[in-house]
Structures are given as structure tokens and as C-alpha cells.
């Protein structure tokens, strides 16, 4: 994996930067690492082949988690899905679509037992 030489190519293609997210020399240097569209144009633009995806995720783990992310993580830990799904099969029935059995919460608890929210 390459190292960042601060050329700024990643910033140039970044939609969050274009919309005003304060950024240092590269998308990895900015303070707000969560206001990111996840379009990953930065990865394609990087001439050094820096593993921006992994570095971005590692950087996020060091900072404070925004509420929306906390909520997403919590839903997944509790139910296996990133949003509330309680009524989903009733809605499907309304449209004449068959129910889809959901993942068992105890399965998710086992799989993600290392994930902690402080």
C-alpha cells in the first residue's frame, strides 16, 4: 500500500469537500471523517494507491461517533438491520408480497459480540 504524499488529488474529486467540509491536505486529514458520501472517488484518484477506505474507517474509530452512526450501529446490533423493520412484513402483505423471514437477533449478537458502543 502506498503512502500519502499530500498531492490533493483526493480532495479535488471529493463531493464533501466541494460542499464545504473543511479538509486538510488530503481527505484523510480532515477532522470530520463522517461527512463522507462513501463514493470513493478519492481512492480512484489517488496516484499512490493509498488504502483510503481502511485508513478512513480506522480514523473514524478513534473519534467520537456521530448520533446518526451510533443509531445505525445500534439498530444493527439489536436487530441485524440498519433501520427499524418491525412492520416491514405487514407492509409487504399490503402490496401482495410474501414475508421474508428476518435474521434472528441472537445470531447477530453472537456475530457482532466484539462491537461495543460506549
Amino acid at each position, binding site marked *: 500500500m502506498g503512502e500519502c504524499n499530500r498531492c490533493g488529488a483526493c480532495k479535488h474529486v471529493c*463531493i*464533501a469537500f466541494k*460542499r*464545504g*467540509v473543511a479538509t486538510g491536505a488530503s481527505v484523510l486529514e480532515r477532522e*470530520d471523517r*463522517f*461527512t*463522507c*458520501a*462513501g*463514493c*470513493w*472517488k478519492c*481512492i*480512484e484518484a489517488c496516484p499512490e494507491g493509498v488504502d483510503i*477506505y481502511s485508513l478512513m*474507517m480506522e480514523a*473514524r*474509530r478513534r473519534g467520537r*461517533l*456521530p448520533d*446518526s*452512526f451510533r443509531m*445505525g*450501529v445500534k439498530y*444493527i446490533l439489536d436487530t*441485524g*438491520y*440498519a*433501520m*427499524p*423493520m418491525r412492520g*416491514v412484513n405487514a*407492509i*409487504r402483505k399490503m*402490496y401482495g*408480497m*410474501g414475508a*421474508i*423471514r*428476518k*435474521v*434472528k437477533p441472537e*445470531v*447477530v449478537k*453472537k*456475530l*457482532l*459480540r*466484539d*462491537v461495543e*458502543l460506549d
Partner: protein
Amino acid sequence: MERLLYLGCMVYNRFPDYELSAKVVLSKLGFKLRDFHEFACCSSTFIPSVSDAWIYLAAYNLALAERRGLDIISLCGTCTSMLKRANLMLEDEKLKEKVNSRLAEVGLSYSGSVVVSHLLEVLKEKEASIRANVTRPLNLRVALQHPCNVFRPSEVARFDNPFKPKAMREIVALTGAEIVDYAMEYECCGSTLLLTSKTMGISSGADKLASAREAGAQAIIVSCGNCAYLFDRHQEDIRKLEAKAELPTLFLPQLIGMAFGLSREELGLDIRRVELG
């Protein structure tokens, strides 16, 4: 041609019309789609932002598919990318062993055999069949929203051109619809920005739709639930910000299904009451 249809949270929860239309169009093309019972979230952007353990959840989905002996068709960009990323990482035998010991606790194992494809990838392979099924070529001008994570990161996606993807254009061209070029065509929709900045997400959507409408589009065609979430579910906020950004959202298989002569009901067009001007 039996496949499992991975809905992901967004489509399962919010876009039954995407599922319905994908099922009916793919079945016209010869696929036998099976419902993916007990699927879980791919891990999305959430779990990787807090832990490496995301791979257990992604691998769980792959293991379920492997147990049924079926490859996966997915409908959203991020789901496709996360499942493909897990597959690539699991080529590492040591990691695979670790993941399998966790999967064993829930009665599963994964050898790495499942192929994950986004809808666009399978449609691209069926161009001849799509052409043969078009009975009512469309008289419609459309703009395209290319789903980022189906093409990027390219080392994970391994499909099409990462900056200027062509697949969706080539598929839509088969329907007879006229594809308008618009200034922001290859920009990300910005939907994920909604998570931390509603203002940025809405303005991103408004700019894109206004650019598409200015170019003469009568609808924006999407093939990802996240793009639809911004363009369709935040329509009102977008219109409030920019009146010229009013544009209906159609899922790619709805558009293809229209050209196949399928009914509004079969394509779920009345679920969101899509009206094309």
C-alpha cells in the same frame, strides 16, 4: 439461472417497487429469483466505522447463500461492495479460518464460493435478451444516476469504468429511451451525506436533479436504494430548496419493464405513484 435476491435494509424497508420490478424483469430474462430469508445488513458504512467485526456479518450473508448453493444478485451499491469486499478479504486463509470459527457458533461455514453481482452486472450480460423482450420502445427522455459503489473502489467492484461507467447507459439505450447528458451525471448523489449533514445531502440532490431537468430529462433513473432515498423520500425538501429540481425517480427495472410492455401494477409504479410528465 437460479439466484438469491439480496434486498439489503433500504430496499426491504422502503422500496418494494424496486424489488417487484427487479423480480419481474429478471424473470423475463430467464432468472429464477429466490427470496433471501434471514439475510442481515451487509454492515453498511456503520459497522466498519466502529469495528473490524463487520466482516462477520457480511460473511454470514455469504455463508447463508453458500448453504443454499446460490449466487447473489444485489440491488444497492454499498451492499454489493461490502459483500464483494468480504469475499476478497476471505481469500486470505487465516482470516477465513477466524471468520469460520465465528460462523460455526451460528451453525454456518463459508468456503468462498458465492459470486456477488449487482443488478447492473447481470443486466449487462443479458443485453441480447433485453433487446428481444422490448415490445414497446419508450418515448421518454431520462437522466441516469450511476450507483457509485457498483464501480468504486474498482479493486473491489471489478466492473465497468470507475469514473465514467457505461453499463447503465448501454442497458437503458436498449429501451428506446433517450438518455440526456447532464453536467452532473457522473457525480455521486450525495445521499450518505444526509447522515451527518441534512443540508449537504439535500443540496447535493437538488443540484443533481436540477441539472438533469435542465438538460431535458423527464425522470431520473436509479439502480440503488440509497440514491432513491435521497431523490424520492426527500423530494419535498429538495423542491423547497430548488423548485427546478422536481423530477420523478424511476428504478432501472421499472424503466426496462415499461419497455417490455409490463403493467404499472407488475412494476409497482403505483406504490410511489410515479407519474411521468
